[in-house]
């Protein structure tokens, strides 16, 4: 029973981590607090839904279309809308404020387009909703896939960030955007790239989530909230932190639902969040504020 709950919790946590990792890149490196993040996820879900139901394209293959589209869209959003904000703001606080307002508007644009195209109804389809038996515990294959992708993306990007020259450049921008140009780094293009990678991760999350969650055009904010909790808990800009925080949240929710009461899962989530904020305000893996 305990083992089964832990496994179920890890699988749920995989979903949380997957949808949060893009935001941690966008917030940590590009310094954009993207309130439209959840709506990019929903847009990707709609993309997967259309590809699957209208064209019969398997969502796994659909990812090959939707992820680059998410990358391109986010690249464009940054270049057109956010770059001017980043250029004119002298300090981090000002950019955060500006980007919150700008992406708050973007949220309604994306949501409005989705409402016009798809209406307000619930969307759902079934893919890979088959049981997988792991040491006597049954989990759904699509949720397991979310967990695997979270771990693969998390580790993969972490390796890129820590082991490659380009990763070092990205970390330099994240650590000190004011000084990075002094060593010949083009902050604009690095931030744009990080923001676009964040968008691609959001799109990947959206495709996977659409396989097992019912979504509607107006549900983006739920994902933004959950991702934000994971990002703050894990430490802003830290992929390993997002992965760990996502898994912890999933574990806590499942353990509480299984052994205490399903009614207390939300309370438990926020209790953990509060504890982390009090004990380690910089997040589990974050560095202390400068």
């Amino acid at each position: 029973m305990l083992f089964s709950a832990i496994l179920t919790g890890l699988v749920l946590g995989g979903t949380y981590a997957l949808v949060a990792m893009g935001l941690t890149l966008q917030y940590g490196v590009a310094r954009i607090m993207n309130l439209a993040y959840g709506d990019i996820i929903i847009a990707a879900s709609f993309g997967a839904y259309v590809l699957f139901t209208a064209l019969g394209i398997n969502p796994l293959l659909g990812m090959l279309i939707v992820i680059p589209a998410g990358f391109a869209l986010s690249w464009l959003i940054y270049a057109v809308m956010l770059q001017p904000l980043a250029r004119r703001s002298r300090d981090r606080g000002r950019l955060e404020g500006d980007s919150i307002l700008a992406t708050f508007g973007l949220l309604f644009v994306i949501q409005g387009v989705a409402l016009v195209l798809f209406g307000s109804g619930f969307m759902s389809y079934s893919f890979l909703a088959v049981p997988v038996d792991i040491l006597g515990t049954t989990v759904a294959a699509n949720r397991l896939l979310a967990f695997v992708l979270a771990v693969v993306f998390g580790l993969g990007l972490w390796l890129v960030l820590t082991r490659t020259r380009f990763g070092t450049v990205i970390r330099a921008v994240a650590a000190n955007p004011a000084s990075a140009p002094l060593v010949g780094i083009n902050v604009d293009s690095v931030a744009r790239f990080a923001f676009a990678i964040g968008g691609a991760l959001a799109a990947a999350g959206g495709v996977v989530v659409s396989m097992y969650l019912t979504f509607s055009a107006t549900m983006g904010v739920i994902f933004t909230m959950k991702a934000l909790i994971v990002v703050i808990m894990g430490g802003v800009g830290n992929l390993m932190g997002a992965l760990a925080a996502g898994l912890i949240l999933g574990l806590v929710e499942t353990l509480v639902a299984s052994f205490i009461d399903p009614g207390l899962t939300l309370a438990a989530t926020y209790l953990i969040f509060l504890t982390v904020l009090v004990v380690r305000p910089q997040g589990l893996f974050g560095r202390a504020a400068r």
Partner: protein
Amino acid sequence: MTTISRRTVLQGMGVSALATALSGLPVLAQDRTAIRIGYAVPKTGANAAGAGISTIPNYLLWVDDVNKAGGLELSKLGVPLPLEVVEYDDRSSSEELVRAVERLATQDNADFILPSWGTGPNLASGPTFDRFGYPQLGATAVTDMAPDLVKRWKHSFWLLGGGHDYANALVQLLVKQREAGTINNKVAIASVADGFGIDLSKAATPSFTEAGFELVYDKTYPLGTSDFAPIINEVSGLGVDTFVAFSYPPDTFALTQQSVVANFSPKVFYLGVGTAFPIYPGIAGPNHDGVMGVGGIDPDSEKLAAYFERHTALNGQAPDSWASAITYASLEMLQQAIERVGDIDREAITAELSSGEFDTVIGKVKLVDNQLRSLWTVGQWQGGKFVGLAHTERDGSRDPVVPKPVWVAA
């Protein structure tokens, strides 16, 4: 550059004052070119999905049906008048809804105002409808308080019953199954910790206990829960033949998928809002067959079948098998009441709605104390239709299939 002289301003003020004064006057019969129908509905926000299934498509269909037939016949004015629509988005917020209803009544001079979607919004806008004297046809509100509300708000009508109606009907149906020996005595209930789930489980828990059922699991889960693996895993080990969830649409769909994945296939599988939605068979695949839920329709009614066809043709989606037909029937009642009175006399029309008998897609309807007491309470997917198994006034249209077919792998 335009300069605005004092004279222009004064002229403008004069014109607008005149316009304001005129707009307060009753519209004269010979000036009428249409009957103005106003409504504020959630086109965005948390309620948009529900309204997009049960409410908005029926408003569109009714206006289309009436106008295609040449409009409403008003005997006292001597002319048929088409319907025109003023629509607002209440953004799923009760404050916004109340403001919009006030605006429809005072600024837009709507002749009739149709209600928003859901129990909470209908309760919140009740006082406003009553204050301005507009009949309120609450076709998507489930409340046990209806008998008190009709005394407080004389213009309100409650057409979807209360939590007790649905819970008691389900328990009665299960008692029969237990007596026939098809199910055991154990029941598990999971309910969403929000309006519908709280109301229904509050009514169901004592009802099950009184009927001698053993409630081996009775817990709530928070609104927005997406992962039901812990609940299903625990319940599947308890040996229950009956699983009941008073759930909202996303939960209803997720519970179904999780139960299939975990191969938890109880003899009675009952879910809440969303089971009666036309998309449910698409989501559950072959496993939708035999699933029970709240609501239901009469699969033998030709009128209802024709309504399903018209609805699908206009909106591109079928209606749901619970509140949709009731919503459309409420509009037919309004239409017949208006035509019987023959004038835009809202007091007389309200009186006619309370006392008259109407011919609708759900059959002959006569309200009791401003409430519709003739309702389908338990439904089950059988042969592609969500058929009514239990009704407050008549026998079920079909016998329940218990045990339901065992899940098949997707």
